């Protein structure tokens, strides 16, 4: 049973560029959440998708947007990248309670 799959694993972008990260949830899970984890910090909630709609959003600017597809997979888009966006981006899927995290995408903005 495949867990949560994220791609790519690593990414280097230049300030001002745009990036798209992808997530395939664990089989049977219908809810996808995205988190940003800066070095040495705990993960911070970005937003959550359920039934292809954003259900909840954390304290992140509109530069961060997302999408969920009918097969429950999800994308995270970040526009106008800043140096401070460099972090590990984690996707978590869930159904009912309990969350399974993917291995993350390490984004470096230079």
């Amino acid at each position, binding site marked *: 049973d495949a867990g949560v799959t994220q791609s790519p694993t690593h990414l280097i972008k230049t300030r001002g560029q745009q990036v798209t990260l992808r997530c395939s949830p664990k089989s049977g899970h219908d809810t996808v959440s995205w988190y940003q984890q800066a070095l040495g910090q705990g993960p*911070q909630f970005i937003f959550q998708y359920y039934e292809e709609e954003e259900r909840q959003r954390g304290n992140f600017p509109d530069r961060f947007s997302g999408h969920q597809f009918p097969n429950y997979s999800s994308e995270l888009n970040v526009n106008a990248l800043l140096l401070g966006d460099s972090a590990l981006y984690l996707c978590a899927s869930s159904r009912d309670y309990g969350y399974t995290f993917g291995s993350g995408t390490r984004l470096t903005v230079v």
Partner: protein
Amino acid sequence: ELKVEQNPLFLSMQEGKNYTIYCNYSTTSDRLYWYRQDPGKSLESLFVLLSNGAVKQEGRLMASLDTKARLSTLHITAAVHDLSATYFCAVDFPPGSQGNLIFGKGTKLSVKP
């Protein structure tokens, strides 16, 4: 403001010793999660505590939840080097929902021989 506070933030232990990590939270959540993270890796689920008084054990780790005190503990028994990692506690917000997780800052555990 919702807060999840862990202490200590750094813990250096000797192998064979016991210690406890504490997690205090400010919401009324009755659901608490513990995760382990190795350097550069993702989060591994350790325990999900679903009700007041819940206690779960796996190997040398035991977690408990006191919702009245808004406190969870992660107890380490006879530590071994393989337990070296960062441990996070988290709660659902809004409480009781399948909402987002609010994490503590993490406790970086180093077990030395």
